Every structure is written in C-alpha cells, then in structure tokens.
C-alpha cells in the first residue's frame, strides 16, 4: 500500500469510518512492534507500546498535515513514545531493561531456514545472534540501524523521524554498522 492509499484510508477514518484504521494497523503494526521491541527487549511491553502508538496516532490524526509521509509521521510518534516510555521506566526500574537484566528471549518466528542470494544461509540461530548484537549496541546506533536496515527508511525520513541532521544520520549509520560488523565478526558470523 503506497502513501497515497494511506491518505485515502486516513480520509475515510476522518470522515467517521473508524474501522478503516484497521488497514493502517495491519500495515504498520509489525514495523512499530519491531522498533518498540528493539527499545524495550520485552515482547509484552513492546506489544503495549505498539498499541499505544496506534491509539496516539488515531487521536492525533486530525493534526497530520500531510507534509511528510504518513509512515514518517507515525514513526515520529513511535520514537517519541518509546523515548518517554524508557524515561518513565528508568524512573521506576522495576522491570528488566536489557537482556543482561533478564529481558525475554522472544523467538524469531522463522519456520525454516531461508535461502538467500549468494548461497547465504541465514538460520534462526544466526538471526538470534544478530539480534543480540544489534540490541546490545549503544541506543543511538541501534535505533538508527533498526530504522535503516530493518525498516528500510531513507536517510531523509530517518532525519525527520529522529529530529537530527542528515549528516548526523550518515555518521551514526556508518559508526553503528562498523561496530556491529566488528561484533558479528567476533561471533564468527562474518
């Protein structure tokens, strides 16, 4: 579904067809969830955050000015909500924050091994290690790699979502990838 069809759905929702919002939820739920999960490393909390993000988006839908893509706008809400969630949780640290603190080990639901081009076989175990190393990166690098390399946002969209300069986006992507590559090499994946 393109951004144009997103706008059509939004028009329907604003006209009173609230149920049409389910199309938006279906389309973006996993992307929002993945980002949230990378921030909290807990399935249930990530699910709650995802739901809250959609609730907030629905509430603020009338303020969406259509200057940026809907996905960018939604991701901005998502990033800000996660930031606030983390702050709130840091203030009351009753739940484990990182995997070293006992965060849950949510299995990546891949039914079988994936055959990739260039004869790369990416197994579930490989993905688990990649996930561990990615989530273990400093927050700035982790979130930018999630947005770029998993969610496929453009540099410009990332700059808008995170509210930082384009050159800053580039630098963080370079440094994040370099650090992750080094760590994956240490784990014998590269």
């Amino acid at each position, binding site marked *: 579904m393109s951004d144009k069809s997103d706008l059509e759905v939004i028009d329907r929702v604003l006209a009173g067809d*609230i*149920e049409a*919002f*389910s199309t938006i*939820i*279906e389309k973006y*739920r*996993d992307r929002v*969830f*993945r980002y949230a*999960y990378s921030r909290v490393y807990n399935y249930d909390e990530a*699910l709650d955050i*995802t*739901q809250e993000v*959609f*609730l907030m988006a*629905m*509430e603020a839908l009338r303020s969406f000015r259509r200057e940026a893509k809907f996905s960018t706008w939604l991701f901005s809400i998502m990033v800000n909500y996660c930031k606030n969630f983390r702050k709130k949780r840091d203030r009351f640290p009753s739940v484990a924050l990182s995997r070293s603190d006992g965060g849950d080990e*949510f299995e*990546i*639901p*891949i039914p079988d091994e*994936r055959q*990739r*081009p*260039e004869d*790369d076989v*990416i197994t579930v175990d*490989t*993905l688990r290690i*990649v*996930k561990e190393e*990615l989530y273990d990166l400093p927050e700035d690098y982790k979130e930018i*790699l999630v947005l*770029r*390399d*998993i969610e*496929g946002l453009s*540099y410009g969209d990332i700059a808008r979502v995170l509210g930082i300069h384009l050159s800053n986006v*580039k630098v963080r*992507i*370079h440094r994040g*990838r*370099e650090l*992750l*590559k080094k760590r*994956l*090499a240490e784990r014998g*994946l*590269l």
Partner: protein
Amino acid sequence: MIREHVRFGLLSDLHDGVMDAISKESVLDHLRECVECDREYREIGRMLRMLSGLRALCIRSGDDFTRATLSRILICEKKRKRQAYYKRMIPSAVAAMVIFLVGVDQFRNSPSGTKPEPVRMSSSLGSGDESREIASSYDMRRTISILKRNRARVTMVSGACIEAEAPVRFVDDIQRECEGSVSYGMQGFATAVGYSDGGMQEGVAPFPGFIQQRSADQFRTVRVRIKLR
C-alpha cells in the same frame, strides 16, 4: 581510481546507493583491484542481509492485535466524542445558569417582584397593622430569649431576621434590650444604661415584664421585625 583502502563509510554508502556517480565509479574500480576492500564490501552486504532477516520478528498471530487495538480505539473515540460534547455544552450551561440567576435576582429586587414569603408559624390573633423594625445586637438565640421574656410570640425565624408579635407595652423594652442598652444584674433587675423613662428612677428599672404600663390598651400586639447581627 582510489589507491589506498576505501573507508568503511564509503562502502556503507555504496550499499545504500547514496553516492554520486563519479565517487561510485572510482570506488567500484578500486574494489575490482583490492581484495581486502572487496571482502569488506561483501561482509557489509552479508551483515545487511542478516539485519533485514530480522524483519521476520513480528507480532504473534494468536494475539489478535489489530482487533484488540481497534476496539480500544473505538472506546477512546466514544469517550473523546462524549468529552467534546460536554466541552461544548458546559459553557452554554454555565451561561444559561448565570442568566437564570441574574434574572431571578432582578425579579426579586424589582418593585413589582413578589418575594416568596417564608413559611410562617401560626399567625397571632389580634395582630394590628403596627410594626416596628429593630436591629438586634445579639445572635438569634439571645434575641429569641429577649422576645420570650417580653411576652412576644415568635412567628418567623430566618437566618437574618426574626419576626414576632409582641404586646405593645413591651415593644420598647424589647428594642432597648436588643439594642444592648439594658443589662441584667444578679437580682433580675434591668439596669438602664443612659436611658430614662418618665416616672422611673434613672439607672434602675424593674424586670422588663414589669417595667411599666405605657398605654391603656395593653393587650394590643405589634408586629416586631428584628434584624439579627
């Protein structure tokens, strides 16, 4: 062609396709010659493919997330609409209330307005047309006791005033007592303060019930309205 090893950032940019055509061409030329940089480039590619594999991470299908979220949204929307309605209605309701209260106040204060009469106790027999307004220096309890002492019959009590029917001969005493110009000594005699009545010794007066007879028609009653302190 670039002679030294290509920086990581350039290889990363090459993967993302965010290089201008000239730089891209020279980096690709270098990669064809330099085994190390080519290996680095391939490793970055492999890492990016592994990262994209994490797209498989998604919400469990059994969670019925979309329906649950939509129900919550519908509930919130209903709540929001209700709040918006109240937000719209509250100023109108307040305005209507203010207008009503101002109107009632105007009506009550207007000369033609009929004030609602307070509930009265049984009216007395023989009430005359005479009435007197007295300002009491005391509270309700003490004022009522003054009235009772002076054979007055309380007909209406409100927070601001007391109405009573008193024998005409006691009205002056009631007024004096209520205004605080008489105090009582231990023997039950009233001492007039700065008050002199004909035939009485100045400064000393009998108990109010027996002060004096002022007129012949002593059974006539007068309506007394006492404003409380």
